[in-house]
């Protein structure tokens, strides 16, 4: 049987991720506002492959990310932009209309800086936290930016990550955050993007990681916790799915797997040849796709690698699921926290 097993091809993935960092073709112009998120996927992916050294533009990446930082305590739009789309020679280094941070790209930029071993000394921590706080709605959920965006569990997770990375939870009202999460638990004990919506592994991961980062996992009652574990475990069938009766998809090996890891229940699923479900979506030229015979992309590649890490695939570093970065990067962050706290 072993003869038929698909082998993990780390070299191809390294090349694929380096290609993304070098640039994208015009067909991916719709990614224009999310370049920071793609950078995070590629850099964190290289980190998981222990290949950061093969990326020559580490310092340039750090400088580019800082060039996207906005701090503006009067408009409360501090954070990191997702790309330079709105940046011009005239407004370089200045505040301007719609030069706003976005919660998802702020998290991605900060995570990437941590992974690249930056010391975060140039981050306007206080301003970002202050702006972040203004994005929380009365029901505890978070908006993505000051105006013009939706609000859901994804952004709650991003907010928790930003607070955790900057070691300052005054960026959110934790009680209201937890209240929003508890109200988003469905009748099937999975967690949705918001109250009464359908439970989904992506939002479940976001909620569980938020509870872990804010040290509030104990707020789940025993039946909620047991029901949640059961719901997540049932998401494993020929690979990981995101909702009941939906096909499996590479990215859920992280969203479902990561939530199970945080809840200390990952070990309950079958281990043998589990990696094959992810490896069937491995492209011969590197990268992972959502399904078999579809085109690979940065997100599925990174989440596939992170999913393989949970399966202890040889050649992949361990992941700290709560922040979705390597354990090594998380250790670096903790050393920064100690320095900031003066201990």
């Amino acid at each position, binding site marked *: 049987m072993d003869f038929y097993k698909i082998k993990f091809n780390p070299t191809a993935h390294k090349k694929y991720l380096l290609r993304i960092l070098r640039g*994208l073709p015009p067909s991916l*112009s719709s990614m224009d506002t999310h370049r920071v998120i793609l950078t995070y996927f590629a850099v964190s992916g290289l980190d998981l492959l222990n290949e950061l050294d093969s990326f020559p533009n580490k310092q340039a990446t750090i400088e580019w990310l800082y060039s996207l930082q906005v701090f503006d305590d009067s408009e409360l739009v501090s954070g990191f932009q997702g790309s330079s*789309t*709105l940046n*011009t020679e005239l407004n370089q280094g200045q505040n301007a209309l719609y030069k706003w941070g976005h919660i998802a790209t702020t998290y991605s930029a900060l995570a990437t800086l941590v992974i690249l071993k930056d010391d975060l000394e140039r981050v306007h921590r206080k301003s970002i936290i202050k702006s972040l706080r203004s994005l929380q709605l009365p029901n505890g959920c978070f908006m993505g930016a000051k105006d013009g965006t939706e609000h859901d569990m994804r952004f709650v997770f991003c907010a928790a990550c930003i607070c955790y990375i900057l070691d300052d939870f005054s960026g959110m009202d934790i009680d209201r955050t937890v209240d929003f999460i508890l109200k988003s638990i469905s009748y099937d004990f999975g967690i949705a993007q918001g109250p009464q*919506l359908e439970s989904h592994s992506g939002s479940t991961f976001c909620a569980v990681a938020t509870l872990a980062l804010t040290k509030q996992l104990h707020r789940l009652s025993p039946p909620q916790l047991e029901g949640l574990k059961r719901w997540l475990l049932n998401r494993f069938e020929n690979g990981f799915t995101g909702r009941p009766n939906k096909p499996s998809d590479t990215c859920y090996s992280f969203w479902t797997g990561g939530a199970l890891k945080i809840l200390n229940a990952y070990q309950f699923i079958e281990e043998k040849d589990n990696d094959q479900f992810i490896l069937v979506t491995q492209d011969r030229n590197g990268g992972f796709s959502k399904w078999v015979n579809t085109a690979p992309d940065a997100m599925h590649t990174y989440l596939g690698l992170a999913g393989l890490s949970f399966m202890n695939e040889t050649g992949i570093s361990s992941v700290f699921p709560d922040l979705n970065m390597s354990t090594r990067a998380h250790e670096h962050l903790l050393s920064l926290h100690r320095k900031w706290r003066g201990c």
Partner: protein
Amino acid sequence: MGESSSDESDTTFQLYKDRREWKDVTPVPQDDGDQPIVAIDYTEQFKDVFDYFRAVLQSGEKSERALNLTKDAAALNPANYTVWQYRREILKALNKDLNEEMDFIEKIIVYNQPKNYQVWHHRKVLVEWLQDAAKEKYLTETVLAKDAKNYHAWQHRQWIIKTFNLYDGELEYIDSLISDDIRNNSAWNQRYFVVMGTTGFTEEVLNREIDYALSNIKVVTENESAWNYLRGVLLHDKCGLSRNKKVTEFCEELYNSGNRSPFLLALLVDMCSEQVSQGNEDPLYNLERAKNLCNELSEKYDTVRAKYWQFMAETIEKKSKKEESQVEAEN
């Protein structure tokens, strides 16, 4: 994301820099620094449109031509939320007919971008401005006809139903979806949403919904959605999971007929667990049965979660010992 993003340059497209009516505006190039990361090899058209978009943002121009420019920019990158935000500002400033905008965004949602957050958000803001949700059910139904599990569409639909109290006819719509695909978990979730938002689970409704779930389970016994719904409904049964006669009789009959759906076995395990943790010695739902069922699950019917079911058996055994020692202590 961008099925509609311009893979091929549009041959009929006249660049803004060549348009006479834009001669008074100086395009503003993007400043991406010395060493950009994940740089996109923009087409000439993309660069041209966004050079003018930046110029308009810089001058704050809110005009008919600027409105058209945002349409081109949104077509090139529908995920650019600033373009949509600025477009809304122009719509307001020019006091435009928002119904026209509703038609415009509807076409984009239905034909190009049914899974794009920005376009659904644009739609939501327009509905809020107009305070008119008359077309929303139809819109979401059109989208759900193509993909009955589209999360954006369901989210939008729940929002308009809640905000404008449009629960009427929803159970019938859900019925039609479930008869098309009994495994449509989104539709099952919507059913719960409707009951919670209308009657709530009164005794009568509880009964009705149990019947509904059971009759659907009968059709496909390995349907997680229907089992989850049944269990969700039973959360409203004061007597718990294991004392509803209709449910227990249904489950026993199914089990005795030889059915071994893992969802049936799992529910029976949880019924045993409930009785054991209450310190009861039920003839049907007890520790021995739980252990046997967990064995069946881990060895035969749900082997990928074998370790979980072994763990469950141990957990229930611990509960029973705890109960025993409590009884002894009381004696």
